[in-house]
């Protein structure tokens, strides 16, 4: 590596994820990519475009539409000594493989008394915002974060899209990576030598003193755009969770202990969501630091409507974040 820092280059979240997969395939012969239309079609979100031509059909394997079988096969191959990356097209189809993920991937290590671990990575797209209506717009990463035995990552930045995969592949246990559909076209700078990042800690993307905005994945951008807050003299700290399991409780409590207020932004439905869990942990760990009850900005509890204005109304937005925070801060004149 040259002594000086290699110049950052313009790239996208999608490109960063493709580089991550490509790097893993080059570095470790045990790594292979398996999923619906990942080969000839180049990936439903074009993340794996060009990989079939470079690595061949043995390591870039298109699968039949049999989520339970190919996710189960991924688990078996991991048991058999491989390092599979299984791509489920979207979280919506992962429901068909829920049994394999919950009853096999997350549980075999425990049932076998520690004999068999499953070094498997499953990637899937999540979230709404592109008028795909109810069946194609779910945001269920919060569900998966309920399950002991697996880890849940939500990369929201280019560094994380580029750096999380390799660390996940080294993990001896199953890691699920949720990529929000609206992030693929996110542009930004990324140093050419960008590489693996840690996957067990949250990150403070914007320090602040008055309120902790806690969020992840597709809603991080919205939290960072809440400029009106600074216009109103409210100094918001934005915490990017990066991992929903394990949840980085220490960073959350540290932030809330300083700001004494918390607003959690979560695209999931409010009832039984990851935001509910975070709110409970803040209540348990920082009750005496709170100057106001924890607030949550979540999706409306409705199957995602098709019409644009309706979908917009259902989803958490910058203005909902600003209103919630302003209300919480009381009239600051």
């Amino acid at each position, binding site marked *: 590596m040259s002594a000086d820092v290699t110049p950052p280059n313009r790239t996208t979240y999608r490109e960063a994820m493709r580089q991550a997969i490509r790097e893993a395939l080059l570095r470790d012969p045990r790594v292979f990519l398996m999923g619906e239309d990942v080969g000839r079609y180049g990936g439903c979100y074009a993340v794996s475009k060009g990989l079939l031509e470079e690595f061949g059909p043995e390591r870039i394997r298109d699968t039949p539409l049999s989520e339970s079988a190919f996710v189960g096969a991924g688990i078996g191959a991991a048991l058999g000594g491989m390092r599979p990356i299984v791509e489920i097209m979207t979280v919506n189809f992962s429901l068909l493989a829920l049994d394999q993920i919950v009853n096999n991937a997350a549980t075999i290590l425990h049932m076998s008394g520690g004999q068999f671990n499953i070094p498997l990575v499953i990637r899937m797209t999540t979230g709404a915002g592109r008028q795909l209506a109810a069946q194609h717009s779910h945001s269920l990463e919060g569900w998966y974060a309920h399950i002991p035995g697996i880890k849940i990552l939500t990369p929201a930045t280019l560094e994380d899209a580029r750096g999380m995969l390799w660390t996940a592949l080294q993990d001896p246990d199953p890691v699920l990576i949720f990529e929000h559909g609206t992030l693929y076209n996110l542009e930004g700078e990324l140093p050419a030598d960008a590489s693996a990042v840690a996957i067990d800690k949250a990150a403070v993307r914007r320090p602040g003193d008055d309120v902790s905005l806690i969020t992840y994945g597709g809603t991080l951008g919205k939290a960072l755009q809440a400029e009106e807050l600074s216009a109103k003299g409210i100094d918001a700290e934005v915490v990017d969770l990066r991992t929903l399991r394990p949840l980085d409780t220490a960073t959350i*409590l540290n932030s809330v202990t300083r700001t004494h207020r918390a607003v959690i932004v979560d695209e999931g439905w409010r009832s039984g969501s990851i935001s509910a869990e975070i709110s409970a942990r803040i209540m348990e760990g*920082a009750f005496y630091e709170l100057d106001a009850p924890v607030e949550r900005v979540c999706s409306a509890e409705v199957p995602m409507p098709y019409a644009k204005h309706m979908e917009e109304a259902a989803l958490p937005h910058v203005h909902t974040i600003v209103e919630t925070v302003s209300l919480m801060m009381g009239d600051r004149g």
Partner: protein
Amino acid sequence: MPALGADMEAGTILEWLVKPGDAVKRGDIIAVVDTEKATVEVEVFDTGVIQEIIVPLGEKVPIGTLLALIRSDGEAAVPSAPKPTPAAAVAKVTAAPTAAPPAAAKPLRPQAPPRAERPAQLPTPPAAPGRLRISPLAMRAAVELKVDLSSVKGTGPHGAITRADVARAAKAPKAPPPVPPTAVARAPVPSAAAPAAAGAPEISAAATQRRAAIAPEERREAMRKVIAAAMARSKREIPHYYLGTRVNMGRAMTWLQAYNLQRPVTERLLYSVLLLKATALAARQVPEMNGFWVDGAFKPAGAVHVGVAISLRQGGLIAPAIHDIDKKPLDEIMVNLRDLVKRVRAGVLRSSEIADATITVTSLGEEGVETVFGIIYPPQVALVGFGKITEQVWAADGMLGAKPTVMATLAADHRASDGHRGGLFLAAIDRILQEPDEL
């Protein structure tokens, strides 16, 4: 009674398929049992002759209860019933009557699952130093019951104060008179429990001794925090406005010299006593300067208790009140003031003195400052400041002369009063000081 299913605790014999004297071998079905979920055949695991049926038809018994006895082949019948051996559904009787029945393991009473201790407590970050750990409910109770929180010991999690703690403190007999919680911010020095004697109480040995026990820096640090909190709150919440006027002190100082000349040192007055009395009398004339801003409204105070800002040599400031200055003669005010300063500096104060000042005076004249614009002590609504006495050129009645003067200033809460009323108040102080013998 065999365990016949994962969720079964007891069973009822529906049918006996054997009777005493019948020969049985391993695997034979000897009874039919109802397990609430199903009727199930019961097999025997020993070979021998049924000697006795113990549990009759229709009786519900828990798992492990002895149902019947089998005599192994060729053994003599055993007259007395052996100690129940709950191991096998049907106990095997060994030949020698005296021999204990086969060492039957105690049936596995469904052990209470070993209590996994509570998952490790979430790491609670230590409360910021000086921050009071008190539940919102307890805080509300403290306000209602007027409990001085600084003396309440928390029994809640991590020593937090709960409502029960507050209620207990409210009922405690000799608890110091209740202090509105806001006073918490202003009670930097551990309040003495010294009896509130009317006259100047001697400083009790216990109080001094208790004061010494607390390391000085600790005390200073605690005081600094409390002052910081109060001042920050005042600046944040009170829209201050400021007025100032220069007061001719000529007549007052001349009157004072004459007064002191006729008295031994123990009865002499300091000029600050005149300023305190003047302020108190002026406050009676402009009542909106004397009271509290609470719950969004001004509450006039019944009496005039003037808080006197007393600085401590090693830093820190307290403004305990001298009660009813407007009604007291100057010499009594002086005695109160001397005693107050002595007790402040000995760190021994009655909490009542700290809490209920209705207006405060700060005079930094001694430190050589001409003008002082103070910060109001919440929840009061006014603070009067006096600078040092300086000789100034003064024109009166067309004549020029040098006169001792003092800058009198007012910092007032614009929610409770307006500049016009503030001006009248300062003018009243000025006018009163021109008639020292009226004081």
